[in-house]
C-alpha cells in the first residue's frame, strides 16, 4: 500500500501544489477526542464522594462546600458530587452526554509523573515498553493512509506517535512562500521529508477549518480549533489535546484555588469543543484521563501528593452518560491503597477498550493483540456509547 505521505511527497516533488484532505476515502463518521490531563488530577476533588461516610474525616481541609451553599458541589448521584468549577459541563451530565468513571487507574503503580504518562500513552503495562502510542496503533490497525489524527500540542505526544500518518499543530503565523524549496531540500532526508509533509497537511486543514478563529495557546482556544477541524467536511477523525495545572502539592484549594483554576479551564475547553463541533457533537466521544490520582488525605501544605486511582471523564453526544460508573472501594483507612490513596478498581484500559470497540468499531482481538497488548484481563466496559 502506498501511504498518504508518499503520495504527497511525490506530488510536491513534481511541483504540484499541496493537497488538503479532499478526495480521501469515506470517513467512518465517528469522532474521537483524547484530553490528557498532565500532572495527576485529584479525582477525589473533581468528583467528590460526599456521600461516602469516611469522606469528611479523610479530606479535612479539602472538603468541598455544602451542596446547598452557593458555589457548592453539584449533585451527580447519591454518592458523587461534581466540583463547582466544572459547572460549565454540568448540563451535559443532565442530558446524558457526560459520564464519570471513578476509582480508575492505569496498570502503573509507582508515583512518577513521567513513567505514569508513558504507560498511559503507550498503552503498555510498564513504562518504557513501547516507543509508539495506542492511538497511533489503532490508526495503523484501521490501515489509515491519510492523517486521521492531529494533536493540538507543541510537540507530538507519545499516544499519537507511531507508524500511521499523524500530525501536530500549534498556532503560528506568517506566509510560507519557501515551502516548495524546503520540501525539495528535504527529499534527501526521508525522516525530515515525511515529518514536514505531515506538518503541512495538518496546517492546511486546520487553517481552513479554523479560519477567523482566535489562535491562542490556551486550552479552551486550542479545543475550539480542534473542534472546528474535526467538524470540517474533510477533516481528520481524531484529536489529542493536553491540559496541565493538576500537580497541586501546595494550595490546592476547594471552591477556589489552583485545582479550581485547572478544572475551570477543562470545563471551558470541553464547552468550546462542544460548540465548535456543532452537529458533529452527536458523533463524538471525548475521553479525559490523567496519569494517576493524588493522596486521599491532604499533605502538610494544603495540597496533595502523588497517589493512585482518580476519575476519568467521557463527554460527547455519543456517550451513554448521565451516570457515574464506579466499583467504589470506599475511603476507610483499610480500603485505601497503601493506607494512602484511593484504591484502583477499574483499569483505564477497560474504559478505553470499551470506547474504541463500541464507538470506533475496533475488534476485540485487535484491541488485545495490537492496541493494548497484555490487557486480556482488563475487559472492556460495555455500554459506554449510545446504541
Amino acid at each position, binding site marked *: 500500500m502506498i501511504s498518504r505521505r508518499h503520495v504527497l511527497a511525490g506530488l510536491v516533488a513534481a511541483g504540484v501544489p499541496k493537497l488538503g484532505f479532499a478526495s480521501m476515502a469515506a470517513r467512518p463518521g465517528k469522532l474521537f477526542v483524547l484530553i490528557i490531563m*498532565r*500532572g495527576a488530577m485529584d479525582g477525589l476533588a473533581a468528583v467528590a464522594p460526599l456521600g461516602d461516610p469516611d469522606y469528611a474525616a479523610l479530606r479535612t481541609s479539602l472538603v468541598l462546600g455544602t451542596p446547598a451553599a452557593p458555589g457548592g458541589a453539584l449533585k451527580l448521584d447519591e454518592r458523587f458530587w461534581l466540583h463547582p468549577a466544572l459547572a460549565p459541563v454540568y448540563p451535559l451530565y443532565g442530558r446524558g452526554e457526560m459520564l464519570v468513571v471513578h476509582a480508575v487507574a492505569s496498570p502503573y503503580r*509507582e*508515583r*512518577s*509523573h*513521567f*513513567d505514569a504518562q508513558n504507560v498511559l500513552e503507550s498503552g503498555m503495562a510498564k*513504562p518504557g515498553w513501547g*516507543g509508539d502510542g495506542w492511538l497511533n496503533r489503532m490508526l495503523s490497525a484501521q490501515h489509515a493512509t491519510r492523517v486521521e489524527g492531529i*494533536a493540538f*500540542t*507543541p*510537540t*507530538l505526544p507519545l499516544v499519537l*506517535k507511531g507508524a500511521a500518518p*499523524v*500530525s*501536530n*499543530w*500549534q498556532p*503560528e*503565523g*506568517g506566509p*510560507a*512562500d*519557501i*515551502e516548495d*524549496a*524546503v520540501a*525539495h*531540500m*528535504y*527529499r*534527501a*532526508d526521508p*525522516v*525530515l521529508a515525511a*515529518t*514536514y*509533509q*505531515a*506538518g*503541512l*497537511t*495538518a*496546517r492546511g486543514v486546520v487553517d481552513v477549518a479554523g479560519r477567523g478563529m482566535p489562535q491562542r495557546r490556551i486550552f479552551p482556544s486550542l479545543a475550539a480549533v480542534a473542534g472546528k477541524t474535526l467538524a470540517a467536511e474533510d477533516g481528520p477523525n481524531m484529536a489529542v489535546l493536553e491540559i*496541565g495545572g493538576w*500537580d497541586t*502539592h*501546595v494550595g490546592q484549594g476547594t471552591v477556589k484555588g489552583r485545582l479550581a483554576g485547572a478544572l475551570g479551564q477543562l470545563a471551558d475547553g470541553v464547552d468550546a469543543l462542544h460548540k465548535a463541533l456543532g452537529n458533529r457533537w452527536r458523533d463524538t466521544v471525548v475521553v479525559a484521563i490523567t496519569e494517576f490520582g493524588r493522596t486521599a488525605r491532604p*499533605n*502538610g*501544605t494544603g*495540597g496533595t*501528593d*502523588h497517589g493512585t486511582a482518580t476519575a476519568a471523564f467521557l463527554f460527547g453526544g455519543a456517550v451513554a452518560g448521565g451516570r457515574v460508573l464506579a466499583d467504589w472501594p470506599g475511603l476507610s483507612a483499610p480500603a485505601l491503597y*497503601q493506607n494512602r490513596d484511593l484504591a484502583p478498581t477499574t483499569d483505564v484500559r477497560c474504559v478505553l477498550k470499551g470506547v474504541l470497540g463500541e464507538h470506533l468499531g475496533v475488534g476485540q482481538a485487535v484491541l488485545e493483540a495490537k492496541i493494548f497488548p497484555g490487557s486480556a484481563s482488563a475487559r472492556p466496559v460495555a455500554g459506554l456509547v449510545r446504541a
Partner: protein
Amino acid sequence: MALNRFGLGARPGDVSAIGSNPHGWVLDQIARLQADPVPGVGDTPGRLHLMDAFSKAKQEADREDAARAAVLDGTAKPGAPAAPPAAAKPRPPILDQPPGKVLENDLARRIDQAVATDWPVSERLAAFWANHFSVTNLRGEIAVTALAYENEAIRPNVFGTFHDMLCATAVHPAMTFYLDAASSVGPDSPWGLKHKRAVNENFAREVMELHTLGVNGGYTQADVQQLALALTGLGLDKAAGESAFYYDRHEPGDRVLLGRKLPADGDQMREAFAILANHPATIRHICRKLAVHFCGDTPPPALLKRLADAWRQGGGALPAVYRALANAPELWVARPLKYRSPQDFVLASGRAFGLHGKGRALLEEMRQLGEMPYGAPAPTGWPDQDSVWLDPGGAVGRVASARRMAALAGPDVDAAGVLPQVVYATANSVTFDVVLAEPNPRNAAALVLVCPEFQRR
C-alpha cells in the same frame, strides 16, 4: 563538526580559527574553572527584595485604583480614605518591572551571551545543567531568581563536582520555591507540633527521581518519605531573601535512606546528599543524560561505561566526564548524531547570522517553537530526545521561525556565503543549489536555517 556537536553552532570564521585541531579546541573549551555568569542579573537577595517591593507597589496601586473606581461608581464607603487622583502621583517605576518581564530580560542577556561567546561548550554545559536541575517559572519569586539561581548554583559548578552542584541547587531559594521544600515541616518537630504542619514529599521525590538516582534508581516510597523527613528544616528567611535551616522544623529521630542510617544527631541533609551524589544509580543516570545530549537517543553502552569510569576515577569531578566525552571516538564521526532542540536551533541561527543584541526576539522564537527556557511543564526540565522534538508541527514551525530570524539578519545578508561556514561537510548539493537559486536574500537566509544539515548536530 566539533563546533556544532560540542558547541552552540559555528559562526562564520570559526572553522578556520579552529584550524586542524578540533579535538584540542574541545579540550581547551572544557579546561575552565567555571561558566561565565550571565551579566546584569544581581544576586538572589537583591532580586527577592525587588520582588517584594514590586508586590507592595502593586498592592498599593491596586488599592488606589479600587478606591478611585468606588468613588466614580458611587460605591465608596462614607469615611473611606480618599485616593489621590490618578494624575497627581507619578507611577512608581518599579511597576514596570513585573517578574515575568524581569525573567525575559535576564533570558535575553543569557541568549546574547550564548550568541556571542567564544566559550560555546561552557555555555552549552551550563544550559544542560540548568535544565537538569530545572526550575519552572510558576510564580514571581521563581521568575526573578531563576537566572540568579543559574549564576549562583549552576554556573560556578559546571566545572566542579556533581555533589557541589547538587547541594548548591537544593538549598537555593529558587528550587525551594519551586519544589515546595520550605513548606515541608517535620510533623513531630516543635514547630510542626505547634502549627500542626506536616511533610510534603514533592522535593524529596524529585531529588531522587530526577536530580540523582533516576526513576529506576532502586529507591522506594519509604525512601522518598525518609528523605522528605531528613530534609525538613530547609526554609526561607524572607527578611534576608535567602534560604535558611530551621532546626525547630526538622523532624527528630534517625532516618534510613537506601539502607544507610542517618543518625538523629547528624546533619541529615548533608549526609543524604553525600549518599545520593555518587550513588551508582546516580552515576548511571547522569552519564546517560550527558551521552544523550551529545550523541543522540541511544548512546552506545561502551561509551556509557567509559563515562561512568571517568566519574568514579575523578571522584565526581565533572571535567573528567567531559574529557571522556571529548575523547570518545563515538562522537568523532562525520554523520550528525542529534536533532537540534528548539533552543539549540535558535542559538545556532543567532550565531550563524551574528544576531547580536537580539536576545529578546530570539527568546520569542524559543517560545514559539515550544521550548521556553525556565518554562518546562514539569520538573524533568525540557526533554532532550530527537523523538520528542522531531515532529510535524515543529518542522513546519521552524520554517516560519527561520523567516523571522532571517529578517533580523537584515537585507544584505550573504546566505550562500554563510552556508558552508555553518553546516558541516560539503552538504548535499541540493541544499547549495536551492539556496543559490533563491533570488530573495531573506528567503535564502531562511533556507540556510531550515536546510536539513542545519537541523542536526
